[in-house]
């Protein structure tokens, strides 16, 4: 009983919001074309999932986002390691990443479309460049922040450079590497959706845009909900992966996530 009450207290606001939505729609307080009833949204969502349209667009979006994200992780983490272990290399690339970090990379959209075309390649390239910055910066600061005492101890015990890298530096830097990945992954989804909205003929961003221009808002909300679900599931999977790899440290609250 107490548990049920706690559950209600924890989650009551979502059904309350949905109820307010439904009341607004059925009494006609808000123009119903912009705000379709919950039943219509549910019908659109379940219908489009059942006939595979939403699933197909979601697969395109998630595929692009993951490809760009994975590429950024594969390039970014070794780059950050090299930057922090080789001072000259670090000094050469540090300004590029620290000055470029607050620059809105999305402004390069037309250039990327010219170079990579309008399809998956330019979207993946965009996700890559957006993810690269947070991954490199957080990993770099994480690896730089490893206490020298740990490295000295390992060297003192006769470990070679590879062993130090694998057994000392990697575990010590993993939490900050994962912090960077966790910032980057939702960014990848957002960027892919944005670029799909600007110009494409597939993906969830396209789906939302095309149904908006046709004033079919039940489908628009179905698309938005699907994007939310994709982002949520990807983040949860990364969280599971993190807790499987970094067993010794609890995940921190995700307040620095973008």
């Amino acid at each position: 009983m107490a548990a049920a009450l706690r559950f209600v207290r924890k989650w009551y606001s979502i059904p309350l919001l949905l109820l307010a939505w439904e009341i607004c729609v059925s009494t006609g307080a808000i123009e119903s074309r912009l705000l379709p009833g919950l039943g219509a949204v549910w019908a659109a969502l379940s219908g489009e999932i059942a006939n595979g349209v939403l699933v197909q667009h979601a697969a395109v979006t998630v595929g692009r986002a993951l490809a760009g994200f994975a590429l950024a992780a594969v390039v970014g983490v070794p780059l950050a390691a090299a930057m922090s272990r080789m001072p000259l290399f670090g000094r050469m690339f540090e300004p590029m990443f620290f000055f470029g970090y607050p620059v809105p990379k999305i402004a390069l959209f037309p250039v990327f479309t010219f170079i990579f075309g309008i399809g998956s390649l330019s979207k993946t390239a965009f996700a890559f460049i957006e993810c690269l910055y947070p991954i490199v910066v957080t990993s770099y600061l994480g690896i730089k922040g490893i206490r020298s005492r740990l490295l000295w101890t390992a060297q003192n015990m006769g470990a070679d450079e590879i062993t130090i890298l694998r057994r000392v530096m990697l575990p010590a830097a993993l939490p900050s590497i994962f912090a960077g990945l966790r910032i980057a992954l939702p960014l990848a989804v957002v960027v892919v959706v944005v670029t799909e909205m600007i110009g494409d003929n597939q993906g969830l961003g396209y789906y939302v845009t095309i149904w908006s221009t046709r004033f079919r808002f039940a489908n628009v909300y179905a698309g938005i909900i699907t994007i939310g679900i994709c982002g949520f599931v990807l983040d949860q999977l990364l969280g599971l992966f993190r807790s499987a790899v970094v067993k010794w440290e609890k995940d921190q609250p995700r307040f620095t996530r973008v």
Partner: protein
Amino acid sequence: MNARLALEKLIVPIGLLLLWEATQRAGVLPTYLSSPSSIVAALVELTESGELPAAMALSLMRAYAGFFIGAGLGVVLGLIAGLSQGVREFIDPLVSFLYPIPKITFLLIFLLIFGLGTPSQIALVALAVFFPVFIPSRYAVQSVNQLYVWSGQNMGAPPMTVFFRVIVPAAAPVLFAGLRVGLAHSFVVLFASELIGGRSGLGFLIVDGEEAVRFDIMFVGIVGFALIGFASDRVLMALRRSALRGQAIGTEEQLV
């Protein structure tokens, strides 16, 4: 020694710019990539004609208006939610439900509600900024060391004093982290909205240059966007430094 250090820091960007210029002049690069010298020429041209300053001012106004509304709501509601369990229990599920949805997808709905142009863009920026500011503010208040609060109360401070002199300063570093992320978000959302439904501003300048096959103008718009994004971040970081003297030691912001 200092000159050498400066050279090491500048060699990559300068080298890239020189390579860009040289390959363009040699005719290796396609024309849509323009060249640094023609971009600078167009930059001077558009600055003298007043088009670039006007577009930058308009985009900045939209971004800041949206940012102040969204960030203001985010900080205030975040602080309230951090203090009051009732408010927390009401807002938390809604936030966790709405947070993973990219706010940019509401662009076309906002266009229909607020009309084409500035109001819908400001509203969209405000919505996008709210979440990354609200969540840190809420957690920041909750993670304030309870001992500080007790000490304040023990010394006879009234609740308002405890709030403004203990809780807000202790939460400020995390609060600024959220503001920084929110600021970055505001420019991304603004760019997309100016590109999709805009008739003015830097995003429109970029599209306009692209459609007129004036790629140098397109790049001027991109440079302008990079400049306002970068400068705004620096201003926020400067504010942060003066607000948090002595609190920023060993944090990421110290380096970036």
